[in-house]
């Protein structure tokens, strides 16, 4: 027994090593906003050594719920708060602070992109998600079943996309084959497949995950470029927001002001989102 007494010292060691004097800000929510906030938090903590900012993922729904339940100071969201969610938390006064703009882009595996599918109309996207088109052949692509990737119901990217494509932000997608969560999880699935169609934020594209253009009803083809997001031509765009309970105060306000400053907005642009000032 005496030999093992040192084990009881471990908790005290942890307590002794932790610095309790730091002010802690907790942020969590949308994985679309996450890269911006985590880099901004790193920079902010360099100039404010007495502040600790903890950034977590989870999706817009998680951000709203945790701010609503007053568990965290800052929620990151990439969609509007629904009326149901506001009604759920009567004691919380949600304040929404836009920090940037983004597009939700339909993306395909590079194999499909290289085979010539570089644009789709909203109608075609709707048919794919409803399950009426199941093979790329029907869209003049290769003879492969479409692996339709849907997202978890409370995800911001899904709300924005479904609102415009299926007309209802909580529409069911009968044609879906997989339901995934965070942007990076979906990115992985699209890279691994050679016939996938998914929905991603504009900043998550790369050489294996290709964003495709949208054919407007008048026949115009709109590429998902930053220019088209800035001038509002691309049909599926959204604000990226932070939410707080009541107007932010103290160090939380300082952090949010930093993100809204020229320096903070540079981080937004470096992550391929559009600065709020444009």
């Amino acid at each position, binding site marked *: 027994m005496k030999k093992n007494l040192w084990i009881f010292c471990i908790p005290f060691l942890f307590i002794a090593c932790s610095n309790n004097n730091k002010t802690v800000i907790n942020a969590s929510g949308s994985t679309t906003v996450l890269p911006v906030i985590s880099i901004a938090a790193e920079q902010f903590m360099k100039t404010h050594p007495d502040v600790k900012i903890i950034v977590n993922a*989870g*999706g817009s*729904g*998680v951000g709203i*719920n945790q701010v*609503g*339940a007053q568990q965290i100071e800052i929620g990151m969201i990439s969609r509007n708060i629904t009326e*149901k*969610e506001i009604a*759920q*938390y009567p004691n919380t006064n949600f304040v929404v602070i836009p920090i940037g703009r983004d597009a939700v882009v339909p993306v395909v595996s590079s194999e499909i992109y290289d085979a010539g599918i570089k644009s789709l109309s909203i109608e075609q996207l709707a048919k794919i998600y409803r399950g009426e088109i199941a093979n790329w052949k029907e869209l003049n692509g290769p003879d*492969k*079943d479409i*692996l339709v990737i*849907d997202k*978890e*119901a*409370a995800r911001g990217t899904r709300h924005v996309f479904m609102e415009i494509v299926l007309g209802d932000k*909580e529409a*069911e997608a009968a044609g*879906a*084959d*997989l*339901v*995934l*969560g965070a942007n990076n*999880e979906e990115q*992985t*699935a699209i890279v*691994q*497949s050679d*016939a*996938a169609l998914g929905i991603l934020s504009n900043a998550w594209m790369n050489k294996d995950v290709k964003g495709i253009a949208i054919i407007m009803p008048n026949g115009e083809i709109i590429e998902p470029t930053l220019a088209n997001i800035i001038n509002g031509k691309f049909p599926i765009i959204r604000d990226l927001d932070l939410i707080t309970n009541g107007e932010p105060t103290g160090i939380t306000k300082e952090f949010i002001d930093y993100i809204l400053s020229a320096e903070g907005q540079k981080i937004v642009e470096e992550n391929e989102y559009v600065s709020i000032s444009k």
Partner: protein
Amino acid sequence: MSAFQNSIGRGYVVSSTYLSIAIVLVIFIVLFISSYDAFSTVGWKIFTLEWNPSKDKFGVLSMIYGTLSVTFIALLIAMPLGVLTAIFISEILPEKFRLYFKSAIELLAGIPSIIYGLIGIAFFSGWVSSLFELATGRTILTAGILLSIMVLPTIITLSEDALHNIPKKYREVSKGLGLYPFETITKTLLPIAKNDIIGAILLALGRALGETMAVMLLIGSIDRIPDPFYNFLAPGQTITSKLGREIGESAFGSLHFSALNAIGFLLLLIVITLTIITQFYFKKEDRL
């Protein structure tokens, strides 16, 4: 040891036993209370296919199907493999290697499930999709196979203990009667260790039913029963993967939250039912 010390020891043992029973009861009661909302609002419609929280539709059939089929695949693979490995380590392997083999296998049990999940996503799902020429490797079968690897150490270690604990005299007697080693194992040792091996499988079953992280990453998370229903090469959903994906998004106290508690309660019921059936079916006979 004084009588006083003795009574402290007794009190400690008894109270910790009651504490574990109490914890099970509290979990059961809390789950039931917080799922009551869902059961009373949704009623028997809970046994339908459609799950859409925004429209207050909470059908759990596809998740129950997914949980049972994933567990079925996992045990189908892990049971024979585990028991045969246990026989090998206990009866065939020279005694001096036994501990090395056992600790290597027990290491498997110590690997966190998220690591299994990551390996599954990075490599295993890719192999499954190219082997069966599927659009995606995130299927019920993939999750089931991965799960079988995860429950394997439980079955091996406990079955091996059961076999190893059989006194030497049984082996000597059956050898003396002229039985081959194969007959000694099947006719003498396995019947004696039967109950303990079933206990091992039961524990593995519990882990398979409750495993969340690895299954959640690998199963595709779509609320659907494949067509036909034995097509395990299609994505699905288990109760635990549903909970893992949605519990953070549901507001505390909402009907959605209550429905998620309700599927947790159903999972607990499934575990309890299976345990009782097994216990009842293989009634403990008197051991040696």
